[in-house]
């Protein structure tokens, strides 16, 4: 069971919002980069986010660049899951590969600072502030498998090859 506060973002949050190009030089220093995570979407987020909180967004979260540093620094900032209406393709793959949990559902019923409780196994998000429940789309099989193995690198180390199909 995951529990934390919601940080709300709009549609089309790009990897430039999450991991700005002007901080390109911090890609080799992810803990430092994480201090700037999502800075161009909400300058206060990085300094105020608490361990276990959730990033909650609209559609097409993570569009743009293939930079894996984007999900990496969201994870490093302590966020337990990103909840969005939809995700851009490369971001989705990257997040699963590195073990950042992504949940897809209608997020209109979640406001900034709402207290959420996520039951990953049951596929339910409880909005404790509003007393409502939202079901999220089950993760695809391949993603569950990769997640269980601890990401793609661990999966390959374990089997010496892909064991997904």
């Amino acid at each position, binding site marked *: 069971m995951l529990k934390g506060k919601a940080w709300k973002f709009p549609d*089309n949050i*790009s990897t*430039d*919002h999450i991991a*700005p*190009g*002007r901080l*390109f*030089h*911090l*890609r*080799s*220093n992810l803990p430092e980069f994480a201090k700037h995570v999502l800075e*161009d979407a909400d300058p206060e987020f990085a300094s105020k986010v608490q361990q276990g909180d959730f990033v909650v967004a609209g*559609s*097409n979260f993570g*569009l*743009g*660049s*293939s*930079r*894996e*540093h984007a999900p990496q620094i969201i994870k490093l900032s302590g966020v337990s899951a990103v909840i969005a209406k*939809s995700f*851009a*393709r*490369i971001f989705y*793959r*990257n997040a699963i*590969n*590195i073990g950042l949990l992504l949940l897809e559902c209608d997020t209109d019923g979640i406001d900034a600072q709402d207290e959420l409780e996520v039951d990953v196994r049951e596929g339910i998000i409880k909005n404790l502030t509003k007393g409502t429940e939202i079901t999220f789309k089950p993760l695809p099989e*391949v993603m569950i498998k990769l997640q269980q193995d601890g*990401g*793609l*690198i661990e999966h*390959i*180390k374990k089997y010496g*090859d*892909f064991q*997904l*199909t």
Partner: protein
Amino acid sequence: MGQTLAEKIISAHTDLPVKAGDLCIARVDVTAVQDGTGPLTISEFKKLGIAKPKNPSRMILFIDHATPSPRKELSNSHMVMREFAKETGAVLSEGGMGVCHQRLVEKFVNPGEILCGADSHTCTSGALGAFATGMGSTDVAVASALGKTWLKVPQSYKICVNGALRKGVFAKDLMLYLIGKIGADGATYKALEFCGSTISAMSMSDRFTLANMAVEAGAKAGLFSTDEKTYDFLKENRREHVFRYIEPDEDAEYERVIEINAEDVQPMVACPHTVDNVKPISELGMVKVNQVFIGSCTNGRIEDLRIAVKLLKKQKVHPNVRLIVAPASKAVMMQALKEGIIEIMTYVGAQIIPPGCGPCVGVHAGILGDGEVCLSTQNRNFKGRMGNPEGEIYLASPAVAAYSAVCGYIADPTEVL
């Protein structure tokens, strides 16, 4: 049932034929990384405990995003890439050789192949009839080590474009028009497959522009059949021996068919801060610009520079504008020098910077000031893209860019072309 281009190319890389929606393990012919994603690819690669890439001569490491290096941290990242290439036999494309996507089509990727690149615009090579897709560093590390990757075979959208593009209208305008129509997530997970008389008549340079921006509609790939234009392009690059015909079957199944009449397309711009926020220039109103950038993997080819110089010749860059030009590769730079393009551009007031990504990624060589407006031929106008979230970026064709640099505001060059 016949196969789409995506199904056909991926099936040639799997043990059993696949169809859209299938999950498969596919052989990968080429992998690519750049200096923004390469160091992380290398550190993930090393975690696997595998000494060398499966096929070292087909893993290419490009130094293009931040070169010449503006910071010591990035210089150190470049060192990591050089060291890895030396240790493993992987190929290094040094700073100054050009943007990875331009270099990949000039030298490294063949029709019918699968390319996984740690850069979202890897889809550019789709114009050569290759299944080329952007992934993250970890995926590319594994694809490089094992020579394979897992893929979900995408459903395809057939994009039929027929008729002649009007004077002053280019591939960039067509692509902005399409993205405006379907949206920045209109083709998420899908392959765009381009066809029709407009596409057949189009140069490879224009096809690369379309394929390059497939990802701006969320697509996994932007694919083209191969034809005599593909052959001629390969021949110009002295590698016609890799040519082969690739085309979809006539009875292939498409999830969606989008018909575009080329004559409906006008000179377009994408307004801040999303690529699908498009307008015809005729509806834009007065937008003054501080900086114009002509270059990038989208529009930094010799054909783009030729159009730009045509509009800059006998003119002057407007005193309130900085015009920055970056040829997409060394080959483009050499050709532009030979044709006198660089001389004219320099004379009229452009700043020519070395082949590479230039200011498009916001690392160096043209970072915007607070409140400044840039018109660029690149593919993205996200907030902060050019190094300052307080800057505004408009996207357009090289013709619009060059003419706007002269006028000082975003202007349609049709009348003067």
